[in-house]
Protein backbone atom coordinates (compact mmCIF):
# COMPACT_ATOMS: atom_id res chain seq x y z
CA UNK A 1 0.00 0.00 0.00
CA UNK A 2 1.37 3.42 -0.86
CA UNK A 3 2.31 5.91 1.83
CA UNK A 4 -0.19 8.43 0.46
CA UNK A 5 -2.99 5.86 0.67
CA UNK A 6 -2.06 4.89 4.25
CA UNK A 7 -2.20 8.55 5.30
CA UNK A 8 -5.54 9.08 3.63
CA UNK A 9 -7.30 6.10 5.20
CA UNK A 10 -7.86 7.41 8.77
CA UNK A 11 -9.48 10.56 7.37
CA UNK A 12 -11.73 8.56 5.08
CA UNK A 13 -12.72 6.29 7.96
CA UNK A 14 -13.66 9.31 10.07
CA UNK A 15 -15.96 10.64 7.35
CA UNK A 16 -17.64 7.27 6.93
CA UNK A 17 -18.08 6.91 10.69
CA UNK A 18 -19.71 10.33 10.91
CA UNK A 19 -22.23 9.44 8.19
CA UNK A 20 -22.98 6.06 9.80
CA UNK A 21 -23.52 7.70 13.19
CA UNK A 22 -25.83 10.28 11.69
CA UNK A 23 -27.84 7.56 9.97
CA UNK A 24 -28.18 5.59 13.22
CA UNK A 25 -29.38 8.69 15.02
CA UNK A 26 -32.08 9.22 12.42
CA UNK A 27 -33.16 5.56 12.56
CA UNK A 28 -33.24 5.45 16.33
CA UNK A 29 -35.13 8.66 16.86
CA UNK A 30 -38.80 8.53 17.83
CA UNK A 31 -41.53 10.83 16.56
CA UNK A 32 -41.38 13.13 19.59
CA UNK A 33 -37.75 13.95 19.41
CA UNK A 34 -36.68 16.66 17.06
CA UNK A 35 -35.06 15.36 13.88
CA UNK A 36 -31.41 15.94 13.33
CA UNK A 37 -31.04 17.33 9.84
CA UNK A 38 -28.37 15.58 7.84
CA UNK A 39 -27.66 17.27 4.56
CA UNK A 40 -25.38 15.60 2.10
CA UNK A 41 -22.90 18.03 0.67
CA UNK A 42 -24.01 19.27 -2.73
CA UNK A 43 -21.80 17.93 -5.52
CA UNK A 44 -19.60 20.48 -7.19
CA UNK A 45 -21.00 21.42 -10.57
CA UNK A 46 -18.94 19.96 -13.39
CA UNK A 47 -18.54 21.59 -16.78
CA UNK A 48 -20.54 20.29 -19.73
CA UNK A 49 -18.79 17.73 -21.95
CA UNK A 50 -16.50 19.24 -24.55
CA UNK A 51 -17.70 19.01 -28.13
CA UNK A 52 -15.48 17.09 -30.52
CA UNK A 53 -13.64 18.85 -33.31
CA UNK A 54 -15.13 16.53 -35.90
CA UNK A 55 -18.48 16.31 -37.55
CA UNK A 56 -19.80 13.03 -36.19
CA UNK A 57 -22.13 11.28 -38.64
CA UNK A 58 -25.18 9.38 -37.45
CA UNK A 59 -23.81 6.16 -38.96
CA UNK A 60 -20.74 5.17 -40.90
CA UNK A 61 -21.40 4.88 -44.63
CA UNK A 62 -21.18 1.26 -45.81
CA UNK A 63 -18.17 0.10 -47.79
CA UNK A 64 -18.51 -0.26 -51.57
CA UNK A 65 -20.16 -3.38 -52.95
CA UNK A 66 -17.47 -6.04 -53.52
CA UNK A 67 -19.25 -7.52 -56.56
CA UNK A 68 -18.22 -6.97 -60.21
CA UNK A 69 -14.59 -6.46 -59.23
CA UNK A 70 -11.42 -7.54 -61.02
CA UNK A 71 -8.07 -7.56 -59.24
CA UNK A 72 -4.67 -6.63 -60.60
CA UNK A 73 -1.29 -6.57 -58.90
CA UNK A 74 2.15 -5.21 -59.72
CA UNK A 75 5.17 -7.47 -60.05
CA UNK A 76 7.75 -6.58 -57.41
CA UNK A 77 10.68 -8.58 -58.77
CA UNK A 78 11.63 -10.88 -61.66
CA UNK A 79 9.35 -13.86 -61.28
CA UNK A 80 8.79 -17.24 -62.90
CA UNK A 81 5.17 -18.02 -63.69
CA UNK A 82 4.57 -21.74 -63.20
CA UNK A 83 2.10 -24.30 -64.46
CA UNK A 84 0.90 -25.06 -60.91
CA UNK A 85 1.22 -23.52 -57.43
CA UNK A 86 4.60 -24.75 -56.16
CA UNK A 87 8.27 -24.16 -56.78
CA UNK A 88 8.68 -27.55 -58.48
CA UNK A 89 6.08 -26.93 -61.18
CA UNK A 90 7.31 -26.25 -64.75
CA UNK A 91 8.06 -22.63 -65.65
CA UNK A 92 5.67 -21.21 -68.25
CA UNK A 93 7.20 -17.72 -68.53
CA UNK A 94 9.65 -15.42 -66.82
CA UNK A 95 8.25 -12.00 -66.05
CA UNK A 96 10.13 -8.77 -65.36
CA UNK A 97 8.88 -6.00 -63.08
CA UNK A 98 8.92 -3.51 -65.99
CA UNK A 99 7.10 -3.47 -69.32
CA UNK A 100 8.96 -2.58 -72.54
CA UNK A 101 7.44 0.90 -72.14
CA UNK A 102 9.11 1.35 -68.74
CA UNK A 103 5.93 1.11 -66.69
CA UNK A 104 5.33 -1.29 -63.81
CA UNK A 105 4.43 -4.73 -65.08
CA UNK A 106 1.07 -5.87 -63.76
CA UNK A 107 -0.92 -9.10 -63.87
CA UNK A 108 -4.64 -9.80 -63.63
CA UNK A 109 -5.56 -12.32 -60.92
CA UNK A 110 -8.05 -15.06 -61.74
CA UNK A 111 -7.56 -17.46 -58.82
CA UNK A 112 -5.50 -18.39 -55.77
CA UNK A 113 -4.42 -21.42 -53.82
CA UNK A 114 -2.22 -22.39 -50.87
CA UNK A 115 0.64 -24.78 -51.61
CA UNK A 116 1.60 -27.69 -49.33
CA UNK A 117 3.84 -25.40 -47.29
CA UNK A 118 0.96 -22.97 -46.71
CA UNK A 119 2.27 -20.33 -49.08
CA UNK A 120 -0.25 -18.38 -51.10
CA UNK A 121 -0.05 -18.49 -54.91
CA UNK A 122 -2.08 -16.51 -57.43
CA UNK A 123 -3.20 -17.70 -60.84
CA UNK A 124 -2.79 -14.77 -63.22
CA UNK A 125 -3.26 -13.95 -66.88
CA UNK A 126 0.15 -13.75 -68.53
CA UNK A 127 1.24 -11.27 -71.24
CA UNK A 128 2.80 -14.07 -73.28
CA UNK A 129 2.13 -16.20 -76.34
CA UNK A 130 0.09 -18.22 -76.79
CA UNK A 131 -2.55 -15.67 -75.88
CA UNK A 132 -4.82 -16.71 -73.04
CA UNK A 133 -2.04 -18.40 -71.05
CA UNK A 134 -2.44 -18.31 -67.27
CA UNK A 135 0.24 -19.21 -64.74
CA UNK A 136 0.90 -19.33 -60.99
CA UNK A 137 2.99 -16.72 -59.17
CA UNK A 138 3.85 -16.62 -55.45
CA UNK A 139 1.81 -13.93 -53.68
CA UNK A 140 5.04 -12.61 -52.15
CA UNK A 141 6.28 -11.50 -55.60
CA UNK A 142 3.30 -9.19 -56.06
CA UNK A 143 2.30 -5.81 -54.72
CA UNK A 144 -0.93 -4.64 -53.16
CA UNK A 145 -4.39 -5.49 -54.43
CA UNK A 146 -5.97 -3.07 -56.88
CA UNK A 147 -9.60 -3.42 -57.89
CA UNK A 148 -11.52 -2.18 -60.92
CA UNK A 149 -15.23 -2.36 -61.72
CA UNK A 150 -14.80 -1.89 -65.45
CA UNK A 151 -14.56 -4.27 -68.42
CA UNK A 152 -13.78 -3.36 -72.05
CA UNK A 153 -15.28 -5.52 -74.77
CA UNK A 154 -14.06 -5.19 -78.35
CA UNK A 155 -16.17 -6.91 -80.98
CA UNK A 156 -13.83 -7.43 -83.93
CA UNK A 157 -16.72 -8.53 -86.16
CA UNK A 158 -18.92 -5.52 -85.48
CA UNK A 159 -15.97 -3.11 -85.06
CA UNK A 160 -17.14 -1.77 -81.71
CA UNK A 161 -15.54 -1.14 -78.35
CA UNK A 162 -17.82 -0.97 -75.29
CA UNK A 163 -16.73 -0.12 -71.78
CA UNK A 164 -18.86 -1.54 -68.98
CA UNK A 165 -18.82 -0.26 -65.41
CA UNK A 166 -20.58 -2.44 -62.84
CA UNK A 167 -22.06 -4.29 -65.81
CA UNK A 168 -23.58 -1.19 -67.41
CA UNK A 169 -22.28 0.24 -70.71
CA UNK A 170 -20.74 3.68 -70.18
CA UNK A 171 -18.82 4.14 -73.44
CA UNK A 172 -19.14 2.87 -76.98
CA UNK A 173 -17.09 3.65 -80.10
CA UNK A 174 -16.50 2.34 -83.60
CA UNK A 175 -13.04 0.86 -84.05
CA UNK A 176 -10.58 -0.49 -86.55
CA UNK A 177 -9.00 -3.91 -85.98
CA UNK A 178 -6.30 -6.02 -87.59
CA UNK A 179 -6.22 -6.83 -91.27
CA UNK A 180 -6.84 -10.51 -92.11
CA UNK A 181 -3.09 -11.21 -92.41
CA UNK A 182 -2.42 -9.56 -89.01
CA UNK A 183 -5.59 -10.38 -87.08
CA UNK A 184 -6.36 -8.89 -83.71
CA UNK A 185 -6.13 -11.83 -81.28
CA UNK A 186 -9.32 -12.95 -79.56
CA UNK A 187 -9.58 -13.83 -75.90
CA UNK A 188 -9.45 -12.25 -72.44
CA UNK A 189 -6.61 -9.83 -71.68
CA UNK A 190 -6.10 -6.67 -69.60
CA UNK A 191 -5.02 -3.05 -69.95
CA UNK A 192 -1.55 -2.74 -68.48
CA UNK A 193 -0.36 0.81 -69.15
CA UNK A 194 -1.10 4.16 -70.71
CA UNK A 195 1.24 6.23 -72.86
CA UNK A 196 0.81 9.97 -73.28
CA UNK A 197 2.69 13.05 -74.46
CA UNK A 198 4.55 11.28 -77.26
CA UNK A 199 4.95 12.73 -80.75
CA UNK A 200 3.44 10.20 -83.10
CA UNK A 201 0.28 11.25 -84.95
CA UNK A 202 -0.05 7.66 -86.14
CA UNK A 203 -0.99 6.57 -82.58
CA UNK A 204 -3.12 9.62 -81.78
CA UNK A 205 -2.97 11.44 -78.40
CA UNK A 206 -3.20 8.44 -76.06
CA UNK A 207 -2.23 4.77 -76.38
CA UNK A 208 -3.14 1.95 -74.01
CA UNK A 209 -0.89 -1.10 -73.80
CA UNK A 210 -2.60 -4.46 -73.39
CA UNK A 211 -1.43 -7.95 -72.47
CA UNK A 212 -2.51 -9.26 -75.90
CA UNK A 213 0.19 -10.08 -78.44
CA UNK A 214 0.13 -10.51 -82.18
CA UNK A 215 0.48 -14.17 -83.11
CA UNK A 216 1.79 -13.19 -86.54
CA UNK A 217 4.04 -10.16 -85.91
CA UNK A 218 6.13 -11.96 -83.32
CA UNK A 219 9.33 -10.15 -84.27
CA UNK A 220 7.77 -6.70 -83.91
CA UNK A 221 9.84 -4.39 -81.67
CA UNK A 222 9.11 -4.84 -77.95
CA UNK A 223 7.33 -8.13 -78.56
CA UNK A 224 4.40 -7.28 -80.81
CA UNK A 225 1.99 -6.15 -78.12
CA UNK A 226 -1.48 -5.04 -79.15
CA UNK A 227 -2.38 -1.46 -78.28
CA UNK A 228 -5.58 0.55 -78.19
CA UNK A 229 -4.93 4.02 -79.55
CA UNK A 230 -6.06 7.00 -81.61
CA UNK A 231 -5.25 7.57 -85.25
CA UNK A 232 -4.36 10.18 -87.87
CA UNK A 233 -6.54 8.30 -90.39
CA UNK A 234 -10.05 8.38 -88.92
CA UNK A 235 -11.38 8.09 -92.46
CA UNK A 236 -10.37 4.39 -92.43
CA UNK A 237 -12.58 3.54 -89.46
CA UNK A 238 -14.35 1.26 -88.85
CA UNK A 239 -12.85 -1.76 -90.52
CA UNK A 240 -9.96 -4.21 -90.75
CA UNK A 241 -7.21 -1.66 -91.16
CA UNK A 242 -4.46 -2.20 -88.58
CA UNK A 243 -1.51 -4.48 -87.85
CA UNK A 244 -3.53 -5.94 -84.98
CA UNK A 245 -3.99 -2.88 -82.77
CA UNK A 246 -7.41 -1.47 -81.96
CA UNK A 247 -7.76 2.01 -83.36
CA UNK A 248 -10.42 4.59 -82.61
CA UNK A 249 -10.99 8.25 -83.31
CA UNK A 250 -8.91 10.63 -81.22
CA UNK A 251 -11.96 12.10 -79.48
CA UNK A 252 -13.04 8.57 -78.55
CA UNK A 253 -9.65 7.49 -77.18
CA UNK A 254 -9.49 10.67 -75.08
CA UNK A 255 -12.95 9.94 -73.70
CA UNK A 256 -11.97 6.33 -73.00
CA UNK A 257 -8.85 7.55 -71.17
CA UNK A 258 -11.10 9.49 -68.81
CA UNK A 259 -13.33 6.50 -68.05
CA UNK A 260 -11.15 3.41 -68.09
CA UNK A 261 -8.80 2.66 -65.17
CA UNK A 262 -5.63 0.71 -65.82
CA UNK A 263 -5.91 -2.96 -65.03
CA UNK A 264 -9.34 -3.15 -66.70
CA UNK A 265 -10.00 -6.61 -68.20
CA UNK A 266 -10.24 -6.62 -72.01
CA UNK A 267 -12.33 -9.15 -73.92
CA UNK A 268 -11.80 -9.33 -77.67
CA UNK A 269 -14.56 -11.20 -79.48
Amino acid at each position, binding site marked *: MSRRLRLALPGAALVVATFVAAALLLDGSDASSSPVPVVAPAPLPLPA*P*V*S*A*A*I*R*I*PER*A*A*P*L*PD*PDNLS*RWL*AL*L*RPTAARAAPGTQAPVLARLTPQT*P*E*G*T*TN*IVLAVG*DRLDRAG*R*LWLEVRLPVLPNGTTGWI*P*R*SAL*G*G*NNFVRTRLVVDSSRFTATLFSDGRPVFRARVGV*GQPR*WPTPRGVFYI*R*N*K*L*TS*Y*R*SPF*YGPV*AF*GTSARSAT*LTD*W*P*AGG*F*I*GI*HGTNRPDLLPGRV*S*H*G*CIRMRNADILRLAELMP*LGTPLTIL
Partner: protein
Amino acid sequence: MDDLTLAELDRDGALYAAVETISGSRADLLRTAAGGAAAFLGLLAVPARAIAATATDTEIVNYALTLEYLQAAFYKDAVMMKKLAGEPARAARIVGAVEAAHVDAYRDVLGPKAVKRPRFNFHGATETQRKFLRTAIALEDLAVAAYKAQIPLVTARPVLATAVSIHSVEARHAAWMRRLFGVVPARGPFDDAESRESITRTIASTGFVARKPRMVAQAGPRFTG
Protein backbone atom coordinates in the same frame (compact mmCIF):
# COMPACT_ATOMS: atom_id res chain seq x y z
CA MET B 1 -5.55 -19.89 -25.70
CA ASP B 2 -5.78 -17.27 -22.97
CA ASP B 3 -4.08 -14.35 -24.52
CA LEU B 4 -2.23 -13.12 -27.54
CA THR B 5 0.36 -10.39 -27.40
CA LEU B 6 1.55 -8.19 -30.20
CA ALA B 7 4.99 -9.75 -29.86
CA GLU B 8 3.48 -13.18 -30.51
CA LEU B 9 1.69 -11.85 -33.53
CA ASP B 10 4.91 -10.37 -34.79
CA ARG B 11 6.81 -13.57 -34.23
CA ASP B 12 4.74 -15.94 -36.30
CA GLY B 13 1.81 -14.03 -37.68
CA ALA B 14 1.00 -12.11 -40.77
CA LEU B 15 3.23 -9.18 -39.90
CA TYR B 16 6.40 -11.20 -39.89
CA ALA B 17 5.27 -13.34 -42.78
CA ALA B 18 4.82 -10.16 -44.77
CA VAL B 19 8.38 -9.09 -44.13
CA GLU B 20 9.82 -12.50 -44.85
CA THR B 21 8.10 -12.78 -48.17
CA ILE B 22 8.89 -9.37 -49.56
CA SER B 23 12.09 -10.47 -51.19
CA GLY B 24 14.29 -13.46 -51.79
CA SER B 25 17.44 -11.81 -50.48
CA ARG B 26 18.22 -10.21 -47.17
CA ALA B 27 19.71 -7.19 -48.92
CA ASP B 28 16.49 -6.66 -50.83
CA LEU B 29 14.52 -7.26 -47.67
CA LEU B 30 16.43 -4.61 -45.78
CA ARG B 31 16.22 -2.22 -48.70
CA THR B 32 12.48 -2.70 -48.98
CA ALA B 33 11.95 -2.39 -45.26
CA ALA B 34 14.07 0.73 -45.14
CA GLY B 35 12.20 2.23 -48.07
CA GLY B 36 8.89 1.51 -46.42
CA ALA B 37 10.09 2.92 -43.13
CA ALA B 38 11.38 6.06 -44.78
CA ALA B 39 8.13 6.52 -46.66
CA PHE B 40 6.10 6.07 -43.52
CA LEU B 41 8.31 8.30 -41.42
CA GLY B 42 8.10 10.85 -44.19
CA LEU B 43 4.34 10.82 -43.86
CA LEU B 44 4.56 11.34 -40.15
CA ALA B 45 7.25 13.99 -40.29
CA VAL B 46 5.13 16.58 -42.04
CA PRO B 47 5.61 20.18 -40.91
CA ALA B 48 3.57 21.11 -37.89
CA ARG B 49 0.31 22.81 -38.82
CA ALA B 50 -2.25 24.83 -36.97
CA ILE B 51 -5.94 23.93 -36.84
CA ALA B 52 -7.42 26.13 -34.15
CA ALA B 53 -5.00 24.29 -31.91
CA THR B 54 -1.29 23.94 -31.40
CA ALA B 55 1.09 22.70 -34.04
CA THR B 56 1.58 19.60 -31.92
CA ASP B 57 -2.14 18.93 -31.98
CA THR B 58 -2.16 19.11 -35.75
CA GLU B 59 0.82 16.80 -35.94
CA ILE B 60 -0.98 14.33 -33.70
CA VAL B 61 -4.14 14.48 -35.81
CA ASN B 62 -2.13 13.82 -38.96
CA TYR B 63 -0.43 10.91 -37.21
CA ALA B 64 -3.83 9.54 -36.23
CA LEU B 65 -5.07 10.05 -39.78
CA THR B 66 -2.18 7.98 -41.11
CA LEU B 67 -3.06 5.12 -38.78
CA GLU B 68 -6.70 5.38 -39.81
CA TYR B 69 -5.66 5.25 -43.49
CA LEU B 70 -3.87 2.00 -42.74
CA GLN B 71 -6.79 0.44 -40.91
CA ALA B 72 -9.41 1.62 -43.39
CA ALA B 73 -7.39 0.24 -46.31
CA PHE B 74 -6.88 -3.08 -44.54
CA TYR B 75 -10.58 -3.73 -43.92
CA LYS B 76 -11.62 -2.46 -47.34
CA ASP B 77 -9.09 -4.79 -48.96
CA ALA B 78 -10.44 -7.70 -46.91
CA VAL B 79 -14.03 -6.92 -47.90
CA MET B 80 -13.11 -6.56 -51.57
CA MET B 81 -11.22 -9.88 -51.49
CA LYS B 82 -14.35 -11.72 -50.26
CA LYS B 83 -12.26 -14.40 -48.54
CA LEU B 84 -13.92 -13.97 -45.13
CA ALA B 85 -17.01 -15.81 -44.00
CA GLY B 86 -19.51 -15.54 -41.16
CA GLU B 87 -18.89 -13.19 -38.26
CA PRO B 88 -15.37 -12.08 -39.40
CA ALA B 89 -16.86 -11.00 -42.75
CA ARG B 90 -19.54 -9.01 -40.96
CA ALA B 91 -16.97 -7.51 -38.57
CA ALA B 92 -14.72 -6.47 -41.47
CA ARG B 93 -17.60 -4.67 -43.18
CA ILE B 94 -18.68 -2.85 -40.03
CA VAL B 95 -15.23 -1.97 -38.72
CA GLY B 96 -14.05 -1.01 -42.20
CA ALA B 97 -16.90 1.44 -42.57
CA VAL B 98 -16.09 2.94 -39.17
CA GLU B 99 -12.38 3.31 -39.97
CA ALA B 100 -13.34 5.00 -43.25
CA ALA B 101 -15.55 7.38 -41.26
CA HIS B 102 -12.58 8.19 -39.02
CA VAL B 103 -10.52 9.00 -42.12
CA ASP B 104 -13.25 11.26 -43.48
CA ALA B 105 -13.61 13.02 -40.12
CA TYR B 106 -9.89 13.75 -39.77
CA ARG B 107 -9.59 14.86 -43.38
CA ASP B 108 -12.56 17.14 -42.80
CA VAL B 109 -10.83 18.72 -39.80
CA LEU B 110 -7.44 19.07 -41.48
CA GLY B 111 -8.63 20.15 -44.91
CA PRO B 112 -5.72 20.73 -47.28
CA LYS B 113 -3.29 20.14 -44.42
CA ALA B 114 -4.17 16.45 -44.26
CA VAL B 115 -1.38 14.05 -45.15
CA LYS B 116 -1.86 12.12 -48.38
CA ARG B 117 -3.27 8.63 -48.40
CA PRO B 118 -0.41 6.11 -48.75
CA ARG B 119 -0.63 2.95 -50.84
CA PHE B 120 -0.61 -0.36 -49.06
CA ASN B 121 0.36 -3.93 -49.76
CA PHE B 122 -0.95 -6.33 -47.15
CA HIS B 123 1.01 -9.26 -48.56
CA GLY B 124 -1.89 -11.68 -48.41
CA ALA B 125 -2.96 -10.76 -44.87
CA THR B 126 -6.45 -9.97 -46.18
CA GLU B 127 -6.64 -13.15 -48.23
CA THR B 128 -7.16 -15.84 -45.59
CA GLN B 129 -9.43 -15.61 -42.59
CA ARG B 130 -6.79 -16.61 -40.06
CA LYS B 131 -4.22 -14.10 -41.30
CA PHE B 132 -6.90 -11.44 -41.47
CA LEU B 133 -7.89 -11.88 -37.83
CA ARG B 134 -4.32 -11.97 -36.54
CA THR B 135 -3.42 -8.83 -38.44
CA ALA B 136 -6.65 -7.10 -37.43
CA ILE B 137 -5.82 -7.71 -33.77
CA ALA B 138 -2.31 -6.37 -34.26
CA LEU B 139 -3.50 -3.24 -36.05
CA GLU B 140 -6.27 -2.50 -33.55
CA ASP B 141 -3.93 -3.02 -30.59
CA LEU B 142 -1.42 -0.73 -32.26
CA ALA B 143 -4.03 1.96 -32.78
CA VAL B 144 -5.19 1.76 -29.17
CA ALA B 145 -1.60 2.01 -27.90
CA ALA B 146 -0.87 4.89 -30.26
CA TYR B 147 -3.94 6.89 -29.17
CA LYS B 148 -3.12 6.21 -25.55
CA ALA B 149 0.33 7.75 -26.01
CA GLN B 150 -0.86 10.82 -27.87
CA ILE B 151 -4.06 11.75 -26.05
CA PRO B 152 -2.34 13.15 -22.94
CA LEU B 153 -0.27 15.36 -25.25
CA VAL B 154 -3.25 17.02 -26.92
CA THR B 155 -3.78 20.63 -25.89
CA ALA B 156 -7.01 21.78 -27.52
CA ARG B 157 -10.06 20.29 -25.83
CA PRO B 158 -12.13 19.72 -28.99
CA VAL B 159 -9.22 17.78 -30.45
CA LEU B 160 -8.85 15.89 -27.18
CA ALA B 161 -12.57 15.06 -27.20
CA THR B 162 -12.26 13.79 -30.76
CA ALA B 163 -9.30 11.58 -29.98
CA VAL B 164 -10.97 10.15 -26.89
CA SER B 165 -14.16 9.38 -28.79
CA ILE B 166 -12.22 7.46 -31.43
CA HIS B 167 -9.85 5.78 -28.96
CA SER B 168 -12.70 3.98 -27.22
CA VAL B 169 -14.07 2.79 -30.54
CA GLU B 170 -10.66 1.41 -31.51
CA ALA B 171 -10.54 -0.41 -28.18
CA ARG B 172 -13.94 -1.97 -28.92
CA HIS B 173 -12.67 -3.06 -32.33
CA ALA B 174 -9.62 -4.64 -30.71
CA ALA B 175 -11.84 -6.52 -28.27
CA TRP B 176 -14.15 -7.69 -31.07
CA MET B 177 -11.31 -9.02 -33.21
CA ARG B 178 -9.72 -10.69 -30.20
CA ARG B 179 -12.98 -12.44 -29.37
CA LEU B 180 -13.35 -13.63 -32.96
CA PHE B 181 -9.83 -15.08 -32.82
CA GLY B 182 -10.50 -16.73 -29.46
CA VAL B 183 -8.21 -14.69 -27.23
CA VAL B 184 -9.11 -12.59 -24.21
CA PRO B 185 -10.40 -9.10 -25.13
CA ALA B 186 -8.21 -7.36 -22.52
CA ARG B 187 -4.87 -8.54 -21.25
CA GLY B 188 -4.82 -6.84 -17.88
CA PRO B 189 -6.14 -3.99 -15.75
CA PHE B 190 -4.02 -1.39 -17.52
CA ASP B 191 -2.90 -0.90 -21.11
CA ASP B 192 0.49 0.45 -22.14
CA ALA B 193 0.98 3.43 -24.38
CA GLU B 194 3.37 3.19 -27.30
CA SER B 195 5.43 5.99 -28.79
CA ARG B 196 5.11 7.13 -32.38
CA GLU B 197 8.63 5.93 -33.10
CA SER B 198 7.83 2.45 -31.84
CA ILE B 199 4.53 2.30 -33.75
CA THR B 200 6.22 3.50 -36.91
CA ARG B 201 8.97 0.91 -36.63
CA THR B 202 6.45 -1.87 -36.18
CA ILE B 203 4.38 -0.83 -39.19
CA ALA B 204 7.45 -0.27 -41.36
CA SER B 205 8.67 -3.76 -40.50
CA THR B 206 5.53 -5.27 -42.02
CA GLY B 207 6.14 -3.76 -45.45
CA PHE B 208 2.46 -2.78 -45.54
CA VAL B 209 3.30 0.71 -46.82
CA ALA B 210 4.04 0.28 -50.51
CA ARG B 211 5.30 2.23 -53.47
CA LYS B 212 2.88 3.44 -56.09
CA PRO B 213 3.16 1.48 -59.34
CA ARG B 214 4.16 3.52 -62.38
CA MET B 215 1.39 2.91 -64.87
CA VAL B 216 1.65 5.92 -67.16
CA ALA B 217 4.67 6.77 -69.31
CA GLN B 218 5.55 9.35 -71.89
CA ALA B 219 7.41 6.84 -74.04
CA GLY B 220 6.53 6.49 -77.70
CA PRO B 221 4.32 3.46 -78.38
CA ARG B 222 5.86 0.42 -80.05
CA PHE B 223 2.62 -1.50 -80.32
CA THR B 224 1.82 -3.23 -83.60
CA GLY B 225 -0.22 -0.24 -84.77
